[in-house]
């Protein structure tokens, strides 16, 4: 199988995935949810909140963006990635072409990553811009903060996406299971003292932020993991879970829905 043919398949499946994820009415809700950081920053600036600066930005964005917006957007998009094609009966069109099931998973996952980053990156950049403009220190004075949030957005999307995609091929109703993982497991396990938070993804995301941001509230976050280790752990975790999803999907049977 040539590289050119693989690229064509990647392009087709990624395009179909992007259209699935960004071309339905659901995207309106996703856009609104993703825009919350930007809307909040605008509101704080408009209200002329004196404490509104880069530190407050971090204090607000960690629980709001990383623990709500990121999880919810990745949950909705990753769980519909394959499940929606199964439910819509469009999957046979892909699977009766000379393309392996693992490749379908991989290409769809790439499409998912593009879609969620299109949704999540602009609002966080704009929110940062508003914060920096409001505190009047110039757009480049806290680039470590912006860099930290962009890196955690990318790697968080990859890691949560891998989890939710895996859940979606295992469970018929993946949204409920994903909600439990994203908002119950991650919140509870991530807040227990000791080594328990290492069982949550949010701990590694916060560790990345702690390592990347020089000054601010994240510097006091309790973690003995370096940003590099946390990043590698999340990358490895995502890759392993995607491979596992491919293996499960390879053995999955598709009975036509009535």
């Amino acid at each position, binding site marked *: 199988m040539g590289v*050119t043919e693989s690229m064509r398949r990647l392009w087709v499946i990624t395009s179909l995935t992007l*259209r699935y994820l960004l071309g339905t009415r659901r995207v309106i809700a996703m856009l609104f949810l993703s825009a919350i950081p930007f809307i909040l920053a605008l509101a704080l600036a408009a209200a002329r909140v004196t404490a509104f600066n880069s530190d407050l930005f971090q204090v607000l964005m960690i629980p709001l963006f990383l623990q709500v917006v990121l999880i919810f957007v990745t949950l909705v998009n990753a769980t519909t990635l394959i499940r929606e094609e199964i439910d819509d009966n469009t999957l046979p069109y892909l699977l009766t072409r000379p393309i392996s099931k693992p490749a379908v998973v991989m290409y769809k996952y790439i499409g998912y990553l593009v879609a969620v980053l299109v949704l999540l990156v602009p609002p966080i950049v704009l929110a940062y811009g508003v914060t920096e403009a409001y505190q009047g220190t110039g757009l480049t004075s806290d680039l470590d903060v912006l860099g930290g949030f962009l890196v955690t957005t990318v790697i968080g999307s990859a890691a949560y996406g891998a989890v939710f995609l895996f859940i979606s091929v295992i469970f018929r109703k993946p949204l409920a299971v994903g909600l439990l993982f994203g908002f119950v497991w991650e919140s509870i396990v991530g807040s227990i003292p000791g080594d328990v938070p290492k069982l949550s993804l949010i701990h590694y995301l916060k560790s990345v932020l702690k390592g990347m941001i020089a000054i601010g509230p994240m510097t006091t976050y309790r973690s003995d993991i370096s940003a590099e280790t946390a990043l590698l752990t999340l990358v490895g975790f995502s890759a392993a879970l995607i491979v596992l999803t491919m293996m499960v999907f390879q053995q999955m049977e598709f009975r036509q829905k009535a």
Partner: protein
Amino acid sequence: MTAVAEAAGVSKWYGEVLGLNAFTASFGTGITGLVGPNGAGKSTLFKLLIGQLHANQGTLRLFGENPWNNVPLMRRLGYCPEHNQLYGWLTGQRFVEALLRLDGMSTKKASTAATAALKVVGLSGAAHRPTRTYSRGMRQRAKLAQALAHDPDVLILDEPLSRSDPMARFQILRTISEFAKDGGHVIMSTHVLYEVERITQNIVLIHNGKAIASGDIHAIRALIDEHPHAVRIETSHPRQLAQALARMDHVVSLEVPSEDTLLIRTRKPDAFYKELPGIVADTRLDVRALESPDDSLEAVFRYLVG
């Protein structure tokens, strides 16, 4: 090559539900109709043939290969699913093109092949409309176009005529016939029996997950002789007519399902149709209509599945 697809003792169950039950049949070259009622196991068999299901028991081969997760084999088949869902936002042209690109075709080649396939199924005029605006018949034709656009060796068509308008049916049947004439093989399922008969003499009858008969339609028709032939007669005096017909020794049963209908079953349809006019004339009973539910392939199917 004698068989395109072969199934030997194939069973497939979904939990406690049996989809196929020791199904054994051979699908030869040309067009073969897989005939059976809803729930007979036709779609299950097709899902097994296209490698989307894995048989619990038995052996299934398509061109001598196991289709389960057989990616290279997909190049040789074109599949038309039963359901009518398409990627509704794509135009017919883009829909077929996108799937052709999954075959590894370049944009230009895919575009040319998609245009040609849509022309073959008579959808050129609607090629640039989103498929969500298509009628059922147009959707069926779009599905057929994507199935044959990459010039496969075999078409596996799950109820390709289902819910189609007469124009679409005509176009689909013509396309299938021409594909077979050009050396392609077709395995199509349907319960619109008379239309199967119009394009092929080869059928496999499936019921409750089992192949109950297969082969040339004439051979299967011979089985009819072992079964009574039903004739429904519309008359205002069904009981009196029944009395008169009862003296025919080949009549097996007589029923009066309604006040103006007589249903008879005979072992010798030819003799029955020959003798009936005389009896009607002798008894001076009016016969408004004669209808045989056994006039087509439907009869074979009904007899065999009881």
